[in-house]
């Protein structure tokens, strides 16, 4: 059974079984590989996307839940890496291995949508959903603050 939804502003369809995590549809069928597989259990945040504008673990979101909904991945955050967070991420030289950073940026974008000028405590609380094994946390905080300032 086909499931229709929207990804990065474009119509998408999948015939994957309803229980399939959205993550695998995004990565392997739609070839949007910026969204990563990290733990498969909603504990690390590497798979973070937006569903109807709010962050969601794509590894915990089933195909059956996305019919008619709007998904945004890192590739759809801006057409040219011009989102204030993407710019701030480079200015602060945040990424190391980079594997978690799509998820970090998608989480941060969700925060700034809800709260354009978050306090440091709010940033820490919100971003503690996402693991960065390279430990870039201090730079992530700086980058989120910079993006909030410069947006």
């Amino acid at each position, binding site marked *: 059974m086909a499931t229709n939804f929207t990804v990065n502003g474009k119509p998408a369809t999948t015939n994957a079984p309803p229980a399939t995590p959205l993550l695998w549809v995004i990565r392997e069928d739609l070839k949007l590989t910026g969204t990563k597989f990290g733990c498969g259990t909603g504990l*690390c945040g590497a798979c973070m996307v937006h569903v109807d504008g709010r962050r969601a673990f794509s590894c915990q979101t089933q195909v059956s839940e996305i019919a008619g909904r709007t998904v945004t991945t890192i590739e759809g955050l801006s057409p040219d890496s011009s989102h204030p967070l993407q710019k701030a991420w480079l200015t602060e030289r945040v990424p190391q291995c980079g594997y978690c950073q799509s998820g970090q940026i998608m989480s941060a974008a969700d925060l700034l949508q809800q709260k354009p000028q978050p306090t440091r405590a709010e940033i820490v609380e919100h971003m503690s959903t996402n693991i960065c094994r390279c430990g870039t946390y201090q730079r992530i905080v700086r980058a989120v603050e910079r993006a909030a300032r410069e947006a």
Partner: protein
Amino acid sequence: MNKSIRASVLSRRQVMIGAAGLTFAIAAPNSLKAAALSGEGPRSAMNPWISIATDGTITIMSAATEMGQGSMTSLPLIIAEELDADWAKVKVVPAPVNEKIYGNPGFGGMMYTAGSNAVTSYYRPLRVIGAQVRRVLLDNAARKWGVPVEELTTEPSVVVHAKSGRKMSYGDIAAIAEVPAKAPEIKPDQLKKTADFRLIGKDVMRVELPTKVNGTATYGIDVQVPGMLYGTVLRAPVEGSVPNRIDDARAKAVPGVTAVIRLPHGVGVVAQTAWAALSARQALLDSVTWTRTGTAWGFDSDKGHDAFAADAKNLSKPARDWSAQGNARGAFQNAASMVEGEYRCDYAYHAQMEPLNAVALVAPGGDAVEIWAGTQSQTTATEAPAKFLGIPRDKVKLHDLLMGGGFGRRGNRDVDFIMDAVMLSNEVGSPVKVMWTREDDVHNGRFRPLSAHYLRAAFDASGKLTAWHHRLAADRITPFMDPVRFQEGGGKDGMVMAGTDVRGYDVPHQLVEQIYRDTGVRTNPLRGIGVTANKFATEAFMDEVARKRGIDPLTYRLELLKGTPRAYKVVERVAQMADWGRKRDGQALGLAYIDYSGSQVAGIAEVSLDRTSGQIKVHNFWCTIDCGIAVQPDNIIAQTESSIVYGLGLTLSERISIKDGIVEQSNFYDYSLPRMKDVPEMHIELIQTDNHPTGAGQMATPLIAPTISNAIMELTGVRLRHSPFVPDRVKKSLS
């Protein structure tokens, strides 16, 4: 990136420098040499480090693989410095597999990125290579203009004749260049002076960084090739165990599954989709029984740890001398007094964010294989598949991709994560992407070993520290992770033993003994290697020694470091930064110093403790690092932040335990990594010196356990001796 650059260089004249005698060649379009150079024809000794296209594009090979540490930028930048290249015109491409040209001098010529030694080991050779090509460009400009080469200088990517005001770009020279058969000799004094560096010491944007904020960075797990199937492997729970009875009915019933395959080390699934492969692996969980072959069956890490500790403390238990200075045994016999201490570290897991994976395509007939993977060693990634398939290594084509973290996990000799894909592709005749689940990655982790440390220090009648003795009982690493290196290195297990000594301190007599243990548990170098466990022991014990003598731990260290100025400086400075003498209300400081492969690091942790829960909180961490010439200063700071956070996890929460040979943890719910809320304010100062550059990728990791143990001692009078300091353990120590 790689392909388009290859195509463009083939269509232009180029200047290239090879290895094997450092031969130069001009490659014209469609010539045999060009084909050889591009790796598309017969291999010759001509594979280049540098090629310069007529449009000025300079392509530089990256010999090291990239796992987040920045070598993909730093190494080419060292070449670009001496070449005096315009960095904006430099394109970096991964070097092909060719140890003779690209091998790491720090690892006996293997292509291997580990030990924080890429910059250290390649620094001199890459500078010479850059300088040689610059010299060829100068010679060509001199010939063209009819002037003595001594009158020429360079600006970035331009040769300048100041006398006549003429300039010629490197691209223009490439169009007319004649290249000598033999590379010009470059003497050390012909290399740039530090003051003349334009790139080294100045931060540049890491070459791959822009791809890491928009989803375009390609890791091994992102690869798709035409006709690709998906694989998973349910691996044996214990090393050496093999599948016994396989009931594959449920796995085969998953729609999309095309094969369930018995492998020597597990059961493989091949499917048309990733989700089908993952679901079928899940369906196999209770459907496979395993032989009880393999050493680790029956091993229990808690009990094993007690046995290790007893053996370390019992001086009559046989041990191997690892390192000795002076006559420690004699000094202990003559000691006026003595202090002793015991420490322990648990197994720990790498937890690189990208679970292990690889794509392989074995050619029909099995006479060639193409591999896409993130690997710390291009050498091992191609050797093991060649051996398995019984083919020459030049029939293994490796595409080395970005790694979502390495931390030592992706460099083992048997490349377990690549062989899964090779074996399954060999069985089904299609390209297969094998992905490990996080649970596979934990259950089949290769851990920082279990260790128990017994230390004692001897004093003379005046109270002077005369001798130091460290007995370490630990699971072996090198014989398991790389038997070849173990053998070539004379049977020394440096990865376990590194950091056991007290380098830098004035201790006349020192003895380190290894109590070699092989439990059968899978082990591996993990960020900080043996240094993390061993410096926990030595730096916490140094604190105990100071306190026993009633001397402030900072004062005591500085006294012993008087003869080691670089060490003295990092310790003195970090103490200033942390305002060491200031007492805190409800918080305390702990200090540690380490000479890690020549890099000097010191750290101070400021901690508090919730006595009810046993939870330790680190509020601030100050760190100084002197790793000589800083090739990329901000990246050194970033790596230091990273290694502090990594150490924090190893010290406070990360713990692998083994029951009956089997790993008890599974995923991030029972193997807990530091999150943003757990991380202190980090204050890092890079102390730049003119010394040969040394490592920066993991040097602060071993500072964390001793600084926290020392701070808790200061705060509570209780010594934490068993890392990680998980809340239950802390509470037990307090009571």
